[in-house]
């Protein structure tokens, strides 16, 4: 009998989280690891492992085939749909303190697609080898170029069997034309809500009046198209983070049931004015505090708010196939079907890569709509977008659940080969996965209540939290 290789990580309470390459995990104490390392597993260890698919006798028997299948399901394979982010303009009518891209003033010239680029974007779509697409309009403020949005939407509805549009807007301005565009069922809104009035004002609008206007527009849009088609994200400035309770109330007040906590992205122009974003410890402890406040609040009120990223990571731990979030997939090989098209027609593999080019750190453009995709560059980028062979990740029990972000590594460290644990991506994900495991194994009814609601379960099955004898 053989045991599939196991990887360990010590948690804060000294227990070990152990997992194999297929993502089957369990908790054990240090003695178990000693026995495993010395090849001295006893009968009850072996029984425990075999019952959970960690062992096999020979190739082609069920235990072996099952492991191969579980492993294969952990690898992300494109499902034949595309996800493209478009930047029809860089101009914006707000000037947020952490703005990630070099926004341009509303009156500026030369920061919008011209007709030629628009035509080429349409041609680029026409050539995508997919039948389904999600198109995200970012900016700048995309509604400043409603004409481009309409042209793209009209084309995509004809070209693809299924098309969805997400407009990432600051919702400062609504007019009849915008409302008409929003009326279609396939159009969704994503906006920024940084928390209570005063924090939102401080980070984003710098004017109580503008914040109020935004609130009114948000309510109006929610009334018009319903909460299913509107989402909001807070960006957390670690210099003045909102109280968790305040932030949650601000979201609840608008009827949101999910929020996605993101730190200010340490990239682009944001990093100049936000040195606090450099340290990941402050973020991690804020994040944990936030999650525990959220859980306590959920249990107190009986209403359930979800923190999207933790819930998503938890789903990724529990099962393969939770690949809906484009930023956390493995492998996550850049292709034209997952791309960002900038205001000048340059194509990038991610929004972060676009920002790096904007600040002239390194040009990671993978082509342009004029010249087409740069296959050589795509091939060059591919190997860093898979974590299976990373010298650190191969020892990490979270590898099957985790992903990569070489662009972020590049941005912070100027190179992509820093030891994982020194990278922000890894530090952030170790913290999220540690927290997810801690919650999963918690016996606190408040925690179980929140987890069950996030996962859509009646009761949290004990089989989801195995502990070695």
């Amino acid at each position, binding site marked *: 009998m053989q045991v599939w290789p196991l990887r360990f990580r010590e948690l804060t309470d000294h227990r070990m989280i152990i997992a194999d390459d297929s993502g089957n995990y369990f908790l054990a104490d240090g003695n178990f690891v000693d026995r495993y390392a010395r090849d001295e597993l006893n009968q009850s260890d072996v029984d425990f492992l075999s019952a959970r698919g960690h062992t096999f006798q020979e190739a082609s*028997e*069920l235990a072996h085939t*099952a492991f191969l*299948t579980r492993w294969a399901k952990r690898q992300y394979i494109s499902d034949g749909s595309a996800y493209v982010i478009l930047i029809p303009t860089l101009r914006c009518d707000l000037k947020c303190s952490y703005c990630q891209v070099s926004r341009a003033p509303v009156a500026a010239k030369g920061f919008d697609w011209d007709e030629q680029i628009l035509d080429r974007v349409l041609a680029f779509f026409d050539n995508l080898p997919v039948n389904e697409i999600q198109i995200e309009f970012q900016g700048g403020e995309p509604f400043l170029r409603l004409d481009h949005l309409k042209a793209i939407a009209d084309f995509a509805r004809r070209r693809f069997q299924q098309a969805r549009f997400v407009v990432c807007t600051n919702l400062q301005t609504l007019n009849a034309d915008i409302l008409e565009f929003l009326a279609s069922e396939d159009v969704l809104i994503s906006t920024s809500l940084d928390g209570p009035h005063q924090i939102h004002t401080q980070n984003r609008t710098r004017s109580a009046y503008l914040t109020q206007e935004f609130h009114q527009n948000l309510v109006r849009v929610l009334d018009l198209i319903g909460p299913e088609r509107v989402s909001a994200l807070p960006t957390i400035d670690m210099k003045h983070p909102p109280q968790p309770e305040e932030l949650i109330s601000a979201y609840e007040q608008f009827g949101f049931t999910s929020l996605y906590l993101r730190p200010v992205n340490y990239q682009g122009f944001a990093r100049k004015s936000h040195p606090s974003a450099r340290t990941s410890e402050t973020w991690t402890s804020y994040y944990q505090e936030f999650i525990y406040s959220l859980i306590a609040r959920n249990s107190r009120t009986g209403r359930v708010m979800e923190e999207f990223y933790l819930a998503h990571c938890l789903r990724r731990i529990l099962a393969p196939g939770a690949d809906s979030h484009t930023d956390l997939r493995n492998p996550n090989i850049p292709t034209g079907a997952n791309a960002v098209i900038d205001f000048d027609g340059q194509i990038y593999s991610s929004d972060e890569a676009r920002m790096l080019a904007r600040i002239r750190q390194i040009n990671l453009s993978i082509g342009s709509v004029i010249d087409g995709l740069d296959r050589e560059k795509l091939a060059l980028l591919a190997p860093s977008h898979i974590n299976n062979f990373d010298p650190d990740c191969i020892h990490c029990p979270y590898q099957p659940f985790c992903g990569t972000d070489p662009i972020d590594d590049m941005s912070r460290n100027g190179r992509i080969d820093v030891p994982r644990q020194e990278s922000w991506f890894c530090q952030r994900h170790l913290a999220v996965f540690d927290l997810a495991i801690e919650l999963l194994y918690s016996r606190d009814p408040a925690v179980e209540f929140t987890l069950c609601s996030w996962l859509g379960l009646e009761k949290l099955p004990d*089989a989801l939290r195995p502990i070695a004898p």
Partner: protein
Amino acid sequence: MIQLRLRSECDRSLSPFVVRISNGARQCRDDATLIFEKLGVLNYRAEHTEFCIRDVAPKDIAGDVLLIDPRRQIAHRLIRARSRHNTFLITEQCDQRCLMCSQPPKEHHQDMFEHFLSAARLAPLGAQIGLSGGEPLLHKQALFNFIDAAWTTRDDLSFHILTNGQHFDEGDLPWLRSHRAQLLWGVPIYSADAAIHDEIVGKPGAFAQLSGNFSLLGLAGAALELRTVVMKQNVSGLPDLADFITRYLPFAATWAIMQMERIGYGRMNWSHCFFDSSKEFTDLGAAIDLMSARRQSVVLYNFPLCTIPPVFRNLAAQSISDWKQKYLPECESCSTRIRCAGFFEWYREEDGFMGIHPQ
């Protein structure tokens, strides 16, 4: 109840033959057209003969494929054009003796593949045909040949094969691989505990054999539907079985948890086996929760809707074949009846579910 056998009259000297009742104009040689109808007797003309069918309205059998048995003066409705539940009974032989079997095995085998092939060729476009038994794979080579032959002219057909999974071997891998897109294998597993499984199917060593064959189906990339009839004997083991499925059978497309059918051995062993899930759903709920946390599909077959806790009702399928399905008098007033699986024709209220509540 819809009749699957109809009284028929035709020349007794003929051998059994397959015809399709034409729906409008005659489309091929094997179509039979209605000549006249008199006193409830339908007179049809086929290529070489004429025959009558009784007790059915012309519109109800239009498009159906019939096997006419002149000696017994019976017409078997092999394919009913307007039903999703068409099944060919390949054989009545079986090497297992499952406690709840609804179709108890018989010694004798009558080979019908020739007629099944003719019928399959006349099936509606894109039809899925069930192949069941007994144990169809006891006649594996003939069965595989039949499927290959059907596909030479009708590659739009797909087959749902119910098998006990005891009769594959490594030599079948290439065939299973090349046919995987249009075959769905329904295979029962009753427990993750080999002893309990073997006891339920009445065959020592069955679980071990099944495991190896599951592995083959997994390696072939076959579409696999696991089927578990819930009974007193295995209900407490369902959460463990769910854990086993997600760890050892991750390639299964779906897991059907099924209620018992009170016929055959199922009727004989009813009081010994029937588990009233309308009164107690805890283990079923735990098994379902585990499956959904691990993102593997699960469905409930043969569960009347009101016997399922509301949160799990979306998993219930209308699984009972139309020809043997019924509702109870109290269902008359129920608002969810159109989505409800209802009951088998042979279900009895007095020893059935205690918690039937019209919604």
